[in-house]
């Protein structure tokens, strides 16, 4: 029993940043923006949170900074894609490189040593639990908003048929921009959880591809908030299982590969019908 509780706890810890990032992915993709810069948003969120917590001594200000940084990074993607006709994938790739380069540069310049920051005032156990609860609250709230509010209807319509949205007098580019910024804020929160919730520092590469696992969770969760949350939980549980099975002879690479294999399988549609929003990734 105690072992199970420890496992469940670890699974929750591993899932939470994935849930935030996966919700961000759902929000962007349902609006028609295929956001592959989620990895970058997690990175800058985690990094900015640590920098501000270090400078001010306040983890809450750090949290705010992380959310803002994620929103800003994805905001650039949103503006580029909706106002400058930039291809979303190309822009996302550029932003991921900028986030990786910028944070590595920042670590060296701000803290004087490359690689990792010193320990900073973090959110603590209570703050960590609050963020975990917040992740699930966001999932429920987002699912409700998507299904039952005018905003949700517009968001879904933008991802399926942006022209219809425009003919109804709503600017689909604006809807997409706002969705991307909100998504960035969510992903930033995922980054904050990594650096100030689970840990109390930033180190290079700490996001470790979670932004891409989140994209897999979006597909596996069939582009719905609760579905993606479920997929993120499953992927989090897999990575918790990895710690338990460390000495059992099951190759850890196989466990790590499962989310990505699941995403490829989901792309084939063999494991049930999964369809992306029709205008996902299509620029206006």
């Amino acid at each position, binding site marked *: 029993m105690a072992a199970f509780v420890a496992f469940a706890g670890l699974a929750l810890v591993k899932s939470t940043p994935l849930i935030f990032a996966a919700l961000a992915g759902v929000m962007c993709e349902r609006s028609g923006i295929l956001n592959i810069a989620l990895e970058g948003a997690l990175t800058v969120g985690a990094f900015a949170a640590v920098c501000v917590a270090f400078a001010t001594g306040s983890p809450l200000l750090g949290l705010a900074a992380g959310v803002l940084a994620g929103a800003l990074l994805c905001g650039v993607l949103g503006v580029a894609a909706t106002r400058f006709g930039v291809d979303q994938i190309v822009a996302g790739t550029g932003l991921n490189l900028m986030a990786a380069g910028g944070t590595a540069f920042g670590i060296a310049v701000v803290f004087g040593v490359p690689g990792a920051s010193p320990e900073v005032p973090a959110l603590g156990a209570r703050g960590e639990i609050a963020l975990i609860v917040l992740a699930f609250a966001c999932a429920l709230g987002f699912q409700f908003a998507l299904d039952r509010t005018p905003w949700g209807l517009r968001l879904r319509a933008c991802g399926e048929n942006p022209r219809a949205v425009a003919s109804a007098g709503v600017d689909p580019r604006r809807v997409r921009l706002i969705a991307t910024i909100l998504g960035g804020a969510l992903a930033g929160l995922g980054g904050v959880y990594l650096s100030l919730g689970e840990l109390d520092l930033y180190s290079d590469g700490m996001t470790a591809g979670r932004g891409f696992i989140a994209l897999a969770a979006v597909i596996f969760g069939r582009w719905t908030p609760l579905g993606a949350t479920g997929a993120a939980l499953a992927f989090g549980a897999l990575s918790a299982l990895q710690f338990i099975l460390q000495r059992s002879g099951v190759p850890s690479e196989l466990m790590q590969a499962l989310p990505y294999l699941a995403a*490829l399988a989901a792309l084939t549609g063999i494991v049930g019908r999964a369809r992306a929003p029709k205008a996902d990734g299509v620029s206006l």
Partner: protein
Amino acid sequence: MTVRREAVIGALALLVVASLAMVWAGTNPLNGFAALLHGSLGGYHQISETLVQTTALLFPSLAVAFAFRAGLFNIGAEGQLIAGGLCAGLVGASFIAPGPLAVVAILCAGALGGAFWGAIAGGLRARYGGNEVIATLMLNILAVLLANYLVSGPLHAPGSEGSETASLPHSSWLAVLAPETRLTIALPIALALAVFLKFVLTRTVFGYELRAAGVAPAAAVRAGIDLRRMALTAMTISGGIAGLGGATIVAGVLHRFNVALSPGYGFIAIAVALVGDLDPLWIILASFVFGILQVGSLAMQAFAHVPKDTVTFVEGLAILGLAARRFVAARAAAAA
């Protein structure tokens, strides 16, 4: 605004950003750029090393451009390069044959490995309409995990500390072009490949169909081009090119497969391909410029104390700026 003026303004903007970063890092930008240029072009060994990096970038950049021309986003050159390198390393370490034969076998193994990795994404797209962006992203990580598993477990070189296969026998190393350097015949192979791809794209029916599929898919379908088949073919060839690049790193530079064989060549390649305007011949020049950055950034870090990651940031910014280029051009045309 002409394309040339636009390019100059873009390059200047990137130089300003890089300068600001250097100032922030506490270095006089002139010293920073001097270290970068001296470290990459300042002598025999510097230039040869820059050409080694040029070669390493040229293969995946050609791969990315080839797929882009077919309207496919291959952001999986990194994974294809690793898959190719892995196959090349395995064949190279186990296949005993006289020198030239072994070299050919290694390069073919690399191209096939990369082609297979690319074909998975192409096949998903062709058969199920699966998004090749997502597929190649996932395949990038899967390639690393597979390589990690194989070379730290079943295929690990006995007695080696790193995650790598056994060394290739000396006879199957690529021939060195300039004495006491790591510059091998991989460079002329890459250059010839670029010229060949330019020829294929512009002078053959297949190249025309491929470009048609990329530029005007609806028209291509009406002209009887099978888009699904084109997606599979283009991704397979693209992967093969990147895989061949991985093989040349294994047989020419490391002389074994190591999981750390690429510092992100496949991602930088996207910037290189865009800077080269997706034209194989311009990509040669772009690869050289990025080769300078690759080698020079290390010198800049060592001698001018500017973190080498500055270059990664500027490369990302270049991608973003180049992607916005079409918009700038269109607005200029409207204003004229």
